[in-house]
């Protein structure tokens, strides 16, 4: 499974054997059981994770209620960011939704790698930019799209989530109540083409 990590990098840019070995040697792999909480709201978020296998759900508590703000699955990054070198308290929880294997990113180790192989710094910049672009897309969708459209785009971009995540958590991720989600699903199931057409 560790190879998956190296393969992921090779898909971005062809790597030399030295680079591949350096990545494989420095990576830290951790396994968590389903239900494990790996970060609590209010705690400092120091670690960056790459999901090798499994599913991690990000949520915050609002008036005692869980609101799902992200769902990370295979090949996705959970990037801890620290402004001016200081870690800020996390705005959310991270909980393993399935048995999950991750690579833990370590900024110091990364710096050592970058000093030796500057190209890896470029790759890491591209990864962060991609993560940013995805996050921006999600955020924009909230301002631009109706819940029904968000449901349809999620179905298209991440169909596996619908098998892996309970409906009520998906509902909160899309930003509606579970009842509204089930109305949306009913409405869509009556439209055989399942696309939104303007009258």
């Amino acid at each position, binding site marked *: 499974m560790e190879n998956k990590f190296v393969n992921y990098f090779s898909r971005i840019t062809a790597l030399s054997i030295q680079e591949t070995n350096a990545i494989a040697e420095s990576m830290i792999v951790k396994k968590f059981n389903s239900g494990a909480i790996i970060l609590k709201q209010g705690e400092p978020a120091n670690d960056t994770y790459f999901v090798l296998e499994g599913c991690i759900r990000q949520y915050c508590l609002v008036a005692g209620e869980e609101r799902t703000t*992200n769902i990370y699955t295979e090949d996705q990054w959970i990037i801890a960011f620290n402004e001016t070198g200081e870690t800020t308290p996390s705005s959310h929880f991270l909980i393993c939704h399935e048995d999950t294997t991750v690579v833990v990113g370590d900024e110091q180790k990364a710096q050592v790698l970058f000093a030796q192989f500057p190209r890896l710094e470029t790759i890491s*910049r591209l990864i962060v930019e991609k993560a940013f672009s995805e996050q921006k897309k999600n955020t924009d969708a909230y301002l631009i799209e109706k819940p029904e459209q968000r449901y349809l785009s999620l179905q298209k971009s991440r169909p596996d989530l619908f098998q892996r995540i309970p409906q009520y958590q998906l509902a909160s991720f899309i930003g509606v109540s579970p009842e509204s989600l089930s109305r949306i699903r009913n409405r869509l199931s009556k439209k055989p083409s399942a696309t939104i057409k303007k009258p």
Partner: protein
Amino acid sequence: MENELIKFLSKYPSLSAEDVSEIAKNITVINCKKGTVLLKAGDISVECYFVLKGCIRAYCIVDGEEKTTAFYTENQAAVPFTAITEQTPSKLFMVCLEDCSLIKGNPEDEGNMYQQFPKLEAITRAMVEQDLGKTQDAFSAFITSTAEQRYISLQESRPDLLQRVPQIQLASYIGVTPESLSRIRKRLSLKTTC
């Protein structure tokens, strides 16, 4: 405006004064009048901007209505990442809301700069990481808060926007109608006077 650029670059301790002046020579700074359209929906873009002075608004048109998705002000990067990385037609417009002084770049120039000044790449990554963190927090805040809370947190985090941006655009950025925003403002002003 060169000075703004030098001031900005000098904030990074990893860059020497010599690096700063060399980098500044290689960077394109453009001045745009208020109203200048930097990106149109439908364009396939490779251009990105960094605001030295001024304000850029990003919006898209949904059913004939403008929905604002971002306001970029001093020291913020306005990069239509999705259009650039996926090379798909942009959904967004980007327009100068004030007279602007901007760094203009594209992935090719950017790559050349990193070759010449490898330290810049680390700075960029750190900047994008910060942007990512802020966007993540903004997203969480958006799904978990009411419009009134969003208005208050905007008041705290970016008080200048409330002066610089028309109400109607601010309303769509918070995700409410202009009428609701004006009700929110009224309610809050009553609270503070009590």
